[in-house]
Each structure stands twice: as structure tokens, then as C-alpha cells.
């Protein structure tokens, strides 16, 4: 069956450090992968989309890598700030192309 796995344990880091979150998947052949941010009680907010032919993508302090051989994506936040504290979700599109399938997310806490 298709699975999307993210670190279930919360990630606690100090302000200014780089946070690295991992997303592993099985039984998908994705054309692209997405990362979303979710704050408590709120809807997911789109951050980045990376396509299968892109090894790396950046947006301001965010960087995503995508390794289709390892079936893994890494999500980096550099110079982290307390405002970056949230749950970060990895998402892949279903084979039909309509549904987004989400991982359980990794909770990030950035302390001053």
C-alpha cells in the first residue's frame, strides 16, 4: 500500500539553527511532491512544490530536495525563528491526480 512517512517525534531546535525534516514514501511514482505548513486549528498552507526532475528548490529560507531513487524529500528551514514553529506536512498526489495524500506531519518547535 502507499505510505508517506514523516518523523513522528517533534523536532526542537534553537533559534538561528537549521531545521531539517524528512519525508519518505513507498509505492508512489510521483511527478512532484509538496510541503505544507499547518498551525493548530488551521488549514494547511502551501509552501513549496518540487517536481521529479528538480533536485532542489528554494524559497527564501526554505529549501526542499527530492530524491526519487531514495524515495525521499528533505525540507530545510535555515536561520529558524520562533514563528516557524508549526507542523510541516509532506503531500503526494494520488495516482488519479486529484487527491492529495498527506503524511502525519512533523511538529517543529523553535525556541529563542
Amino acid at each position, binding site marked *: 500500500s502507499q505510505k508517506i512517512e514523516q518523523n513522528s517525534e517533534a523536532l526542537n531546535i534553537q533559534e538561528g539553527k537549521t531545521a531539517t525534516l524528512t519525508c519518505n514514501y513507498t509505492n508512489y511514482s510521483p*511527478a*512532484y511532491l*509538496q510541503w*505544507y505548513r*499547518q498551525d493548530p*486549528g*488551521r*488549514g*494547511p*498552507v*502551501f509552501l513549496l*512544490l518540487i517536481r521529479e526532475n528538480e533536485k532542489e528548490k528554494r524559497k527564501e529560507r526554505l529549501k526542499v530536495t527530492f530524491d526519487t531513487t531514495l524515495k525521499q524529500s528533505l525540507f530545510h528551514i535555515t536561520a529558524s525563528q520562533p514563528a516557524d514553529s508549526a507542523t510541516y*506536512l509532506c503531500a503526494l*498526489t*494520488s495516482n*488519479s*491526480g*486529484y*487527491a*492529495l*495524500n*498527506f*503524511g*502525519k*506531519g512533523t511538529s517543529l518547535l523553535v525556541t529563542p
Partner: protein
Amino acid sequence: EPEVTQTPSHQVTQMGQEVILRCVPISNHLYFYWYRQILGQKVEFLVSFYNNEISEKSEIFDDQFSVERPDGSNFTLKIRSTKLEDSAMYFCASSDSFKETQYFGPGTRLLVL
């Protein structure tokens, strides 16, 4: 910046009652979706809607659920006879093209007593 809106933000209902959750997708988007998130669990896909018909639905989306686009701006999710296990956050999303980024609304928290 355009955004997806949802009403109500909170809904409390008695088991067996019908509820309608409303969404206004981003105006030029053509694909519409409903997801739910039970407390402490992951976001789960319910249904997608395009060209006035369901394009995909999950196992969760059984006969108790229906969707409708009653006019040019609203997109609704109806649960005919609510069950305790329907208690969750329900998110509406929209996208402007197939297989592209989906933009989510703030959600409706549904509590079934």
C-alpha cells in the same frame, strides 16, 4: 491575495442530524476538494469535484456524504445523518488546474454529540 473561505467556523450538532458545510473557493479555480482531519490525526482526502461532477472520492465518502456547487461561487459538503465519528475539522480546497497546488480554507470544526 485570494483565499478559500469556509462557513461556519464551528458547528455543533446532534447525532443523526444533517449538516451542510459551506465553502467559497478561489474565484478562478476549477477544481474543488473536501478533506477532513480528526483530532490528532492526518489530513484525509474525501472528494474532488470538477466540471459539476465528482472526479474522485475516498472510502470515507460514503452515501451519507454529498457535494454540490449550487451556484457560481459556493461549494458545499452535506452529511445527511451525522455520527459521532464524523467529528473532525473539515477543510475545503481549490486549485486552478489538474495536478497542481491546492489551496486550503481555514476549516470548519464539526462536533457531533
